[in-house]
Structures are given as C-alpha cells and as structure tokens.
C-alpha cells in the first residue's frame, strides 16, 4: 500500500535536500538590521494588492456610467467592501513608500554597483510600474480627481516632443476622455501592469539569487560577525514574517480608522478649482508648475533617464573624478529636493 506522500513523491520528484538548499540561502549578517529587510515589503504589499484587487474587481464596473456607483456600492453595500477598499488604498500608499525607502537604502549603500547595475535598472522599472499602478488605480474611482487627474496627465504627456500626441491618444483612447478611457485604465491597472510588475519582481529576485546580496560591513561590528552568515530559514524568514504581520496590522488599522472615502463624482463640465494628485506625484506636479511645458517634461525625462543609468554614471564619476563618494552627496541633495518639492506642493493650494 503506497502512502500518500509516496504517491506525490513518485509523481513530483523533488528532493527535500535540494529544496532546503534552494530556499535556505545563507544570509549575510548585516541583514539582521531591519532596514535591510525593506526590499521584501513592497513584494509583500504587492501580494496584498493582488488579493484585495481581485476581490474588488468582482464588483467594480469599468465604465463612466457605472464606475462611480460601483465603487460606492463596494464601499457601502458589499460585505467587507469598505475594508477591502481601505486595505487596497492604504496598501498602494505603503507600497509606493516601501519602494522609495528600499531604493534609497540601495542607493546610499551603493548596492547598485558592479555587478548589480542591471538589477538597479530592473528596480527602476519596478518603481515606474508601481507609480503607474497608483495613477491608474485612482483613475478608476471616477471621482473628480480621477477624471481631471487623467486629463492633466494626458495633457502633460502631450507636451512630450515628437511622440506627445501619440502618448495622449494611447492614454485616453482618443483625443479626449471618452467611453473607452476607463476600460483602458482598468486593463492597465488590473492586467498589464500587475503582470509586468510580477515578471519584474521574479527577475529582480532571480538576479539577487544569482549574484547574492551585497555584503556590507560596519565599523563598530565585532570581528566574528563580519563576513558571517546566518540561515534564511528560519531566522530571516521570521524577520520577514514580523514585518509582514506588522504591515497587516498597520493596514488593518488604517483601513478601519481612516477608511477610503469618495470625492465628488467626475463632472466633465466642472473643472475643480484645486486639483491635486496623490502625494507621490507631488514632486512631479510641483516640477511641472515650476518649468513650462516641454522644458519641464524634457528635464523630468532627463532626471528619470539619469536615475535609470545611475550605476554607470556613478562608475564614471568614481573612475574619472577625485570624488569617489560623490553619489552620496548627489543622492542627499536629490532626496532633500524631492522632500522639499513634495512639502511645497502639499502646503500650497495651487
């Protein structure tokens, strides 16, 4: 009589030892410091977003005539709808924050340097994907911010030289916001972007496994801890579990205490006096207001381009100049500028 385990083993020839080895990569000692475990948080939140997003999609209707009402119904009628929507909304905010924090940690520890340049660029794609998910996400509610946010974004895109018109038409499915715009945002938000993000996450982790994590040492560390490793399971797994649980508690609390509200329904005839995107676009929004049209778009494009290829720029600076740690200063100034522009936008009405 074959045991059930034997039955499965026979059909799925997986060696327990190989599996243990695969999942039990030795982890460098510095990862015992919790801020080095930030990379897992966006991935974790992404799973939360997928689960809550699928549940929300059961009820959401992506058409201008029904979208707002369906979101209202999710918030007010559907069982636990308010909670799922709250978690999804706060999950999005936390995910953007987590990606930014993780990227800053990678930047300031120089973890993007050779041979990890490609993974930095994958990371940049992950950041852009996350931001686009955020943008398409709040476009789906079909409140005033959704409609006018999309319109403003399309007009900004139109300012891009050569391909501006095409970008705008791609975004809006026409020259202006129309019946096909919302379904397009929905497909982007619920299918294309998550698939892209999932693929990129797999690639990101695969590269990490191929190269191993950057090994860092600290000045005041005892000698025996330098260069030492510990097991992924259960030690690091527990750390990730703790962070995951903390995040879930935080999400649950935020969704209950500050539930996702709804703004006024989109009204194509009434331009709101004040239109503000989500906080993570404040910096771009302020930048667009500081410089006019194409100049703003080109400069922003240049900044993103530089960020994308930063590992090579940094390598060039280290090779050719007398300031090998210039990246820290540039990063600090950039971070201050981003925080400054964000606060500036947050503090003024227009």
């Amino acid at each position, binding site marked *: 009589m074959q045991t059930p385990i034997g039955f499965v083993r026979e059909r799925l020839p997986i060696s327990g030892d190989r599996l243990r080895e695969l999942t039990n990569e030795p982890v460098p000692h510095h990862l015992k410091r919790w801020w080095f475990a930030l990379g897992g948080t966006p991935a974790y939140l992404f799973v939360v977003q997928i689960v809550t997003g699928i549940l929300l999609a059961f009820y959401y209707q992506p058409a201008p005539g029904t979208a707002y009402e369906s979101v209202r119904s999710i918030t007010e009628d559907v069982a*636990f709808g308010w909670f799922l929507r709250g978690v999804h909304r706060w999950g999005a905010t936390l995910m953007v924050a987590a990606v930014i924090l993780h990227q800053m940690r990678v930047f300031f520890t120089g973890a993007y340097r050779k041979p990890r340049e490609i993974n930095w660029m994958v990371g940049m794609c992950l950041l852009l994907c996350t931001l686009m998910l955020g943008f398409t996400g709040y476009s789906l509610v079909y409140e005033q911010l959704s409609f006018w946010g999309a319109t403003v974004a399309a007009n900004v895109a139109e300012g891009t030289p050569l391909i501006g018109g095409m970008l705008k038409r791609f975004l809006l499915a026409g020259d202006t916001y129309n019946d096909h715009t919302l379904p397009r945002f929905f497909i982007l938000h619920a299918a294309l972007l998550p698939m892209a993000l999932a693929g990129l996450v797999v690639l990101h982790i695969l590269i990490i496994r191929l190269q191993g994590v950057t090994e860092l040492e600290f000045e005041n560390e005892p000698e025996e801890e330098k260069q030492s490793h510990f097991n992924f399971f259960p030690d690091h797994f527990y750390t990730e579990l703790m962070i995951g*649980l*903390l995040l879930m*508690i935080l999400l*649950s609390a935020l969704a*209950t205490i500050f539930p996702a509200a709804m703004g*006024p329904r989109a009204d194509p005839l009434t331009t709101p006096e004040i239109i503000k995107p989500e906080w993570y676009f404040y910096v771009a929004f302020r930048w667009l207001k500081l410089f006019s049209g194409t100049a703003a778009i080109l400069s922003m494009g240049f900044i993103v381009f530089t960020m994308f290829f930063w590992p090579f720029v940094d390598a060039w600076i280290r090779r050719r100049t007398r300031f090998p740690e210039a990246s820290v200063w540039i990063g600090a100034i950039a971070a201050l500028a981003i925080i400054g522009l964000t606060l500036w936008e947050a503090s003024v009405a227009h």
Partner: protein
Amino acid sequence: MTLNAKRWIIAFLGFTFLASLLFVQYEEVTRRRVEVGLTSHSISIPASSKQCAECHGQLTPAILDHWKGSTHAEKGVGCVECHRAEKGDVDGFDHYGALIATVVTPRDCARCHAAVESEFARSHHAAAGNILASLDNTLAEQVEGSRTPFDPHGAPVAGRKAEPVNGMAFAQVGCQQCHGSKVALKATDGSKVTVDDLKPGPDGKPTNLDAVGKVLKDQNGKPMFDAGSWPNTGIGRLNLDGSKGSCSACHSRHDFSPRRARQPENCGKCHLGPDHPQKEIYEESKHGVAYRDLKDKMNLDAPKWVLGKDYTQAPTCATCHMSGNLRNGGRVTHDPGERISWTNRPPISLPMDTDAEHRVITEADSEKRAKLIADTAEAKRTRMKEVCSHCHTSDYVNLFYKQYDDFVALYNEKFAKPGKLIMDTLVKADLITKKQFDEPVEWSWYLLWHHEGRRARHGASMMAPDYAHWHGTFEVAERFYEHMIPQVREIVEKARAEGKTDAAKQVEDVVNEILNRPEHSYILKQK
C-alpha cells in the same frame, strides 16, 4: 535577537492581527445590523427628561417612540431641551417640577438652530400667517363662515347640545392649518390673549403684564388654549412669544425626520388643491415620475443629502428649493424663495426682486426700484440654475426659462393685466362695491387668477403641460370670455338702464379697447 524572541514577537503580532480582523468583523456585523434595521441607533435619554419618558412612555407611547427614532434622541436632546419655558413666559407652567410650555416655537428651536431659524424667519413661509388679513381670509371667515358666533336655528341636530356655532371653524381648520393660526390663550373675562395683547419684547417675554394677568388657567395652573388656535402647525403661525412660524410644519414632531422633509409628500400637506397644486404638478412632471420610480435609490437618509454627491436620480421639492447641491457647496437654505425668480401668487406675476426685508418690490419707477433691490430675481434664478445644471446643460436650462418667461408674459398681458384693469374700472365707476365676493364678477375674477391662472403658471414653472393648459390657460380663457366679460357687459347694460350712462361708457370703453387688441381678435371675429 534570538530565534525564540522572534517567535514570541511573531506570536504576539499574529494575535494582534487576528484581533484587528475580529474588530473588522465586528464593524461589518454592526454595519449590517443597522442597515437591515436589526438595531436602532443608540439613544440616550438625558437625566432632565428621564421623568418625562417614564410617564409619557405609558401615557403617550407613540410620542416617545417617535422621539427615539430622531436625531435628537441620538444626540441626547430630550423633552425638556425643547419644551423648556423660562420664568415670565406667558404659556409656561410647572409640570412635576419642570417649567415647560406646550407650544415649541422657532424661537425655542433657535436655541440650537439659530442660523436655520434666521433664514426661515425671512422666508415667505414665515410670513404665511399674514393671510389673516387677506382676501382669502375674507372668503373663509365671512363668505364661507361668520366672524361672529351665532345661535343654531330651530331644533338642535339630534344628539347635539344647543350651543353657539363657531363661525370661524372653516378658517381655523382650513386656512390656518397651513398658513398658521394666531395662537391664543383663554382669558378670565371670556376674551382671548394673543401676541397682540402680550406685546413681547425682543427676548420674547410679554411686556403687557395686564394681559398676562388675565390668562385663564386650569386647576393645575396650566394656561388654557383657545381651541380655535391650537393645535396648529401652520407654517406662519403667530406665536405668543412674537416669533413666526412652526418648524414642525415640515419637520413633523417628534422624530423631526429630515428624510420626510425631503419628500414631496411632506410639502403636499399644503401645496396642492385647486389654487396651487404644486404637488400634483410635480407628480405630472418628469421630475415626479423619476422620483416615484427611483425613490429607493435616492439615499434619503444621508446626513447632508447633497445633490450630485448623495443622489442624482430625481429632484424633489426640497432638492430645487432648499437642499444643498454640489455647485453651491452643499448649502441648504430654509428660505425657499431664494431660488424662485417669478412670484406667481398675485393676480399679475412679478419678478422676484426683493428688498432688504425680503419683500417683493412692486415699485415701477426703475431708479427707485434699483435702490430698493437687495436681491434680484436674476440672482435667484442663477441659484436655481445651479440646481438644474446637475442634470441639464446650460442651453437646455436657459431655453426652458425662455419658455417659462414667455408663458408668464402671455398670461400677464392677455388676461391678468386686462382683468385687473376691468375690475379696477368697475370699482372706480362705482358699478360694483369695494366689498369682495358680493357680485358674481368678483367670483369670476378670483377664480381666473387665484385658481386657474396660478395652476397655469405653476404648471409652466414645473413642467406639467396638462396643468399649464387644460387645468390652466384653457380655463383662464373660458373664465375670461364666457364668464367675466358677459358679466361685465350685463353690469354695463344694467347701469345704462338705470341712467348711469357715463359710468357704463367708462367701463364699456375699457372692455372694448381690450377686446380690440390683436391678441383678442379671434374671439371678436367669432362673436
């Protein structure tokens, strides 16, 4: 950190997360229970009203039950908070240790709702009691009833005692239940004590203490009301404290439900019938049809009930005339006149240019008129258009208003102004008395503008074609050509036969001049 410590922290966090999910579950269940009506909202009876609730829960359980369903109950506003009287209030009496009054007036409601009260006080609603000295009241008090009581004639009706007949009963039960009574207390000398006798000061306290002294009280010291004036929830009630109106006219006691006030049936207590059938007009209109169909989706319980935010399905009376909307920032007004650009109440419709006292300006001289205007008809129309624009384009709204203006102008010019001119000439020529309703032509004229003319204009204002035409202008025309003009001609003939040639000619000239106008040519050719 040791592995064991991590395990303990994970266990703790796991339980905390589980607890947070349990809390979410609790929230959801509570929400569901309230939604399906399994639990009512939590209420608290304030200590000061505990005693009231104990007795009245037995004596008048429905009052207490209604109150329990109110926002007042939720917020801990009990019986005493509203019924509280102050020392010196003429209708105050000691009721088991609490000084209270029976009638709650807008002045009482203003203790919490001051802004609402001041809006209401300047509205036409609050002035509805002015009818007590008007033509309509002459009709109810004198033509239909009798201002002085009289003894029954012949043998009393079987089963009834022979007692003097109250000739004011028609006015009191008919007119005053909408327009408001002048609240009166019985006096020891058999007369009545009203606000006119009490002469209340700015604080609502009576200044004429002689009048206070002669108020008749029952064995418990409670002032006795004159039955003709109370019970009354007329919207322009003249209260003993000098305030005007009654909030419960729309916000029925004792649950003061905003939900009910938002529904047209609430306004239908008064705004219906042959002379101003606004409720029926609304029901005929597309607005009313949509409301009947979609009422359940209109979120009538929403705390603010803002058009464009809380609902968009259909407008009710409140939507257009009072409630907040997205365009006006959700501002509710308790002065329904704020958005009305024509007054169709008088014989000849007037634009609602109002003065500082919110009275319609009748001054014709444009310079003097401009000085008097505090709020123009145009501004009022703009406010209404803000409401319309949630569902209609500006073109649509502007063209509707053009249709409406044209309708009112045609009525004014073809029938109202000529009718008034004829009636004024008849009085001037001394061919009819100044006294109302003693000649058939006065009934005809009254029916023309007060019933048929208003039906027509209100029908046009609220998109009810049948009221505009068949119940309206068709009957206006019939009344004018087939009743009024023949009656005037008869008066003229009679005057001529009696030798009053000049007077007869004066009226005849006016009638002929009117009928010779091009707009009346069809009828002339027929005759």
